[in-house]
């Protein structure tokens, strides 16, 4: 079983967009083993020749009728946003200062 270190956790945390403290990084390094162990266990039966199952019931996406409905009022939606301007969400810049 591969061992997982703090750097691996830090890389995953960056992908997940979560700032973690050093203590959190250390704690999670051990816990990632659960995923490794679970993959191994499931792989005993989920071999490549087993077709993927997305759902146990014979149900495919049920589409609604293509009828226009009134969307949510913009003001109601923006009322819960951290910041808004001119009827739009306002976020920080996407790129750094130098871009």
């Amino acid at each position, binding site marked *: 079983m591969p061992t997982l270190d703090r750097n691996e*956790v830090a890389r995953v945390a960056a992908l*997940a967009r979560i*700032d973690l403290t050093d203590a959190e990084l250390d704690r999670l390094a051990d816990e*990632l083993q659960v*995923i490794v162990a679970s*993959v191994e266990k499931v792989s005993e039966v989920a071999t490549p020749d087993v077709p993927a199952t997305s759902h146990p019931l014979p*149900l495919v996406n049920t589409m609604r009728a293509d009828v226009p409905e009134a969307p949510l009022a913009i003001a109601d939606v923006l009322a819960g946003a*951290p910041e808004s301007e001119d009827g739009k969400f306002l976020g*920080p*810049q996407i790129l750094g200062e130098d871009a």
Partner: protein
Amino acid sequence: MSAELTRRSAAELAALLASGETSSVELTRAHLDRIAAVDDAVAAFLHVDAEGALAAAAETDRRRAAGEELPELAGVPIAVKDVVVTKGLPTTAGSKILEGWVPPYDATLVERLRAAGLPILGKTNMDEFAMGSSTEFSAYGPTRNPWDLERIPGGSGGGSAAAVAAFEAPLAIGTATGGSIRQPGAVTGTVGAKPTYGGISRYGLIAMASSLDQAGPVTRTVLDAALLHELIGGHDPRDATSLPDPLGPLAAAAREGATGELKGVRVGVVAELGGEGYQSGVRDRFAESIELLRGAGAEIVEVHCPSFEYALAAYYLIMPAEASSNLAKFDGMRFGLRVEPSDGPVTAERVMAATRGAGFGDEVKRRVILGTYAHKPG
């Protein structure tokens, strides 16, 4: 009268309403009084909406007085787990990242409750984003078991189960991914059912693991659970996983079962769940239940699910993997908390990481990290 009212089942309350012996306003007030009396100790509710509940109750009383035909549970108050969005009522999913957020729309099941005239008493506590089995991991503090305040009420829907067990509400809504309705039901001596996948619309549920999440009833009797299930279930065009077929006659089945006659009912007992790991007494009580069913005329058959051995490992992959995707939307841009990094440039990416680092609790961070790792190829 008020104390007696809160002890009644929802079906009994519905009968009192239908015969004019009580009003929805009286019922709602009785439950609000009960909440005021005990919820400091139980902490089942994150938010109580006395004004909204009483207004809805008055409207249902008016409809009934006008001779309108109403669903059986019309006028019976209900509590809703805080992972279900409610227009105009705060919805946090037990997380600081959604503190103060007021949804601009209703979940389909909430829409159905409102249309049927059930006053919503408030929103119930839960483990953050429904990740837990004890309701100790709410960012707003734990809920206590009304039977013994030193014990947990189960989770993640401990708030809904405790509210019903403490007679603060005759009915509540729960949601379950891996036991969050039934386990608190067992721990608080109440009734909870996880419906067949697709049986109750999930439109407006804040998702954890979409392959597993379902909403369901939390009550004190099986008949109440069946009545509530029928009321909120059925096809919803806004949920693509919603079953197109109508639900079976659940309340009729519950009434039939309540006669004590179970001839013609076949009950399967899963052989693979008879193994080790149970606390002493649990297996004995289970065996007693089987004998009670057999005594009432039910046919007991052993069934085999040989792949159950792999279920926990599969759950440990599916649940965090889907949770990490579903929780990606909590990024500090469109709703809830936004936190700027303490130093360095204030870019969108760094604001997202700072917001999620500050707004998510330990268990949520753990599952999102595990899920992100599980998604990693190779």
